[in-house]
């Protein structure tokens, strides 16, 4: 019989109502906790296999599902109950697997390389046919990146444009992903204000034939 959300939380808790701290409780608690951990590991293994297909080997699936059970238990107190428990645990597992795949994919590229690639991408000559307004906007943008942003904001933005995922930039700069996002959000607001100060808008940077639907760093992990 499937567990309810409350049962999952209760079964994975340690003997004193705390997330398992590795200290043995009574035998009954241990049996219950081990059974719940084992069940959750199998569920998460299946979730990762369906989500990532051949990108994850059997060994990856074993390691990541085990890691994800531990992470889920560590975060047990933050589960609010506004989703199924297994969906919440699956979100933790997918995040862990994406982090591992992105780390592997970019293992050979340094932060400095990504910053240089981002700079180069911005300075790339425009196509033969380009509106004067757009070229002005591009010049003002390059100026804004150098003058209106802090060095930390500038490097993070250029690394992002150079193709390094935020998750990897955060890991390499010792930041949480959310904190990095906030830093880049502030950078975007500064850039937009700088453009507006020159009578330009974000739309002036976009070549509508190719740019409107192009997201930042299109999916690189999903098959």
């Amino acid at each position, binding site marked *: 019989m499937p567990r309810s959300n409350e049962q999952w939380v209760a079964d994975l808790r340690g003997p004193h109502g705390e997330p398992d701290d590795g200290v043995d409780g009574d035998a009954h608690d241990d049996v219950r906790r081990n059974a719940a951990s084992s069940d959750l590991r199998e569920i998460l293994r299946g979730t990762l296999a369906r989500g990532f297909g051949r990108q994850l080997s059997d060994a990856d699936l074993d390691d990541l599902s085990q890691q994800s059970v531990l992470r889920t238990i560590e975060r047990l107190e933050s589960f609010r109950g506004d989703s199924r428990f297994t*969906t919440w645990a699956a979100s933790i597992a997918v995040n862990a697997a994406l982090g591992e795949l992105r780390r592997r994919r970019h293992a050979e590229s340094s932060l400095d390389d990504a910053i240089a690639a981002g700079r180069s991408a911005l300075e790339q000559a425009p196509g033969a046919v380009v509106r004067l307004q757009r070229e002005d906007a591009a010049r003002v943008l390059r100026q804004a990146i150098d003058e209106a942003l802090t060095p930390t904001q500038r490097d993070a933005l250029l690394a992002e444009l150079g193709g390094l995922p935020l998750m990897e930039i955060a890991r390499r700069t010792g930041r949480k992903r959310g904190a990095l996002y906030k830093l880049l959000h502030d950078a975007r607001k500064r850039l937009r204000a700088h453009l507006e100060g020159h009578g330009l808008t974000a739309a002036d*940077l976009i070549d509508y034939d190719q740019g409107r639907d192009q997201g930042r760093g299109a999916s690189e992990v999903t098959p």
Partner: protein
Amino acid sequence: MIQPKGARDVVGTLLDLTRDEELDCDQFHEHLAALVDGSGSLDPRLVELMEHHRRICPECEEERAILARALGCD
């Protein structure tokens, strides 16, 4: 990987989507399970902020899409 030819377009698109109030990636992830399970339990304003984050952050959108596919919710 952003192609050099499109870098300015990408910045332009990002700036075009920039708002004063945005969810960051950690906040998005905090509510992702509820979004994928069916957003009925989430405040509509929060859902709108999450939809905006999906547009501006392809990494989080990829995470959502993989989770939805894995759970058969897509």
